[in-house]
């Protein structure tokens, strides 16, 4: 699993990556009450706002970690947004995407580097 400075995790699955937010990010957000996911098939550029998450406190955006195409979204989150707090690095993944350049994954942090980053 790889981690971004925007507190997302990426896990390679075949030629796709699965994207979610880290446990640390979920704790910071507080109780998640709404998740808006992108359309499958959307072509996105790095840093596009692709997911909206609302907690009891505020709204936040999840950015596309890299260029690519959204291939699948986790639509169960729309009905059960609380899952983001319960299992952020497991069941509560947001979307899968096919990367334009899979080698860019290598630039992200590994778990040890991320733990150090959030200090």
């Amino acid at each position, binding site marked *: 699993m790889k981690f971004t400075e925007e507190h997302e995790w990426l896990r390679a699955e075949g030629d796709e990556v699965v994207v979610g937010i880290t446990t640390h990010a979920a704790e910071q957000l*507080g*109780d998640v*009450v*709404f998740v808006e996911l992108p359309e499958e098939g959307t072509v996105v550029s790095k840093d596009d706002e692709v997911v909206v998450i*609302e907690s*009891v406190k505020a*709204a936040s955006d999840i950015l596309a970690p890299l260029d690519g195409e959204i291939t699948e979204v986790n639509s169960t989150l*729309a009905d059960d947004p609380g899952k983001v707090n319960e299992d952020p690095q497991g069941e509560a993944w947001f979307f899968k995407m096919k990367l334009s350049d899979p080698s860019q994954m290598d630039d992200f942090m590994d778990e040890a580097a991320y733990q150090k980053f959030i200090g």
Partner: protein
Amino acid sequence: MTELEQTPLVALHKALGAKMVPFAGYEMPVQYPMGVMNEHLHTRAHAGLFDVSHMGQVLLSGGSWEAVALAFEALVPMDVLGLGDGRQRYGFFTNDAGGIEDDLMFARRGDNLFVVVNAACKAADVARMRAALPGGIAIQELTDRALIALQGPQAETALARLDARAAGMRFMDVADLDLGGCAAIVSRSGYTGEDGFEISVPADRAEQLAQTLLDMDEVAPIGLGARDSLRLEAGLCLYGHDLDPQTNPIEASLTWAMQKARRAGGARQGGFPGAAAIYDAMLHGPDRRRVGLQPQGRAPMREGVALFDSETASDPVGRITSGGFGPSLGAPVAMGYVTAPHASSGTALWAEVRGKRLPVTTCDLPFIPANFKR
């Protein structure tokens, strides 16, 4: 940036693991480790303890009750004179245009008037009283007192353990209680829609009292986050958001707070700032009105969101002034102002959220029925 002020409970908040944020010039707990959602639900099911010591506590005295009450009536459109001893009312300061300068609670304590005002407005409120009240009325800001709210269906059980007289109080009663050796001014009121108490105590006794209450099984500490969602579900206004100097009480759907004696034709009509404008709005009906707003989907609609009467209309008919998620409803809730033709309950509107028009329906307030001990 100016340094934040602290309440007498700041050390306790930090020891409890609160996340502290700046609010109205004070360092305040926004949530504890329990989290906003569970703090909210705990308060509705059991009892929550809130530090509201940032609010202003002011004592007006001088001569007779009649002198004090009539002096205060020059600043508020409320029947102060008719207030029974040991009773409290909701009120607001108005300006010459009829707008609301702050909302407040006032209580009669013998010949004195005890006033609680919002933290962000308290300096202006004290200045307003000093400028307007006659020389014979003493205005004392009680800066050496803390204010603790205990709210929820088990608040009575908890407080009555310290002084059994708490159980005999009714909604909006005010009494002197002895809370484990701590002399307190207690009102049966709050800002959550639940039964509960607001407890004024000397600053140096506040932490001990809070700790005594928190040691009880029913009671958990509650931060500003849940305070906001609780009051929103209860349909209660937050000054600076739902009320402001450009909004008159008729628009704000607060006509109920102005007793008959102070309305047009009443025994003591007029004599407060903006009376003509307020009576005019009452007679002709306001151009816009504060309403409840029930989003039809799951997306929260927050302060500032514009409201439209169709999916394509270009001119808004209103705006959300408070909005978020209502944990007890398990759904988003909001309130805001809409033009008079759209204010009747059940009107279908559209809210523009992140560039999309989403359906929302006007509704009566509160979202959660009040649970007061009348």
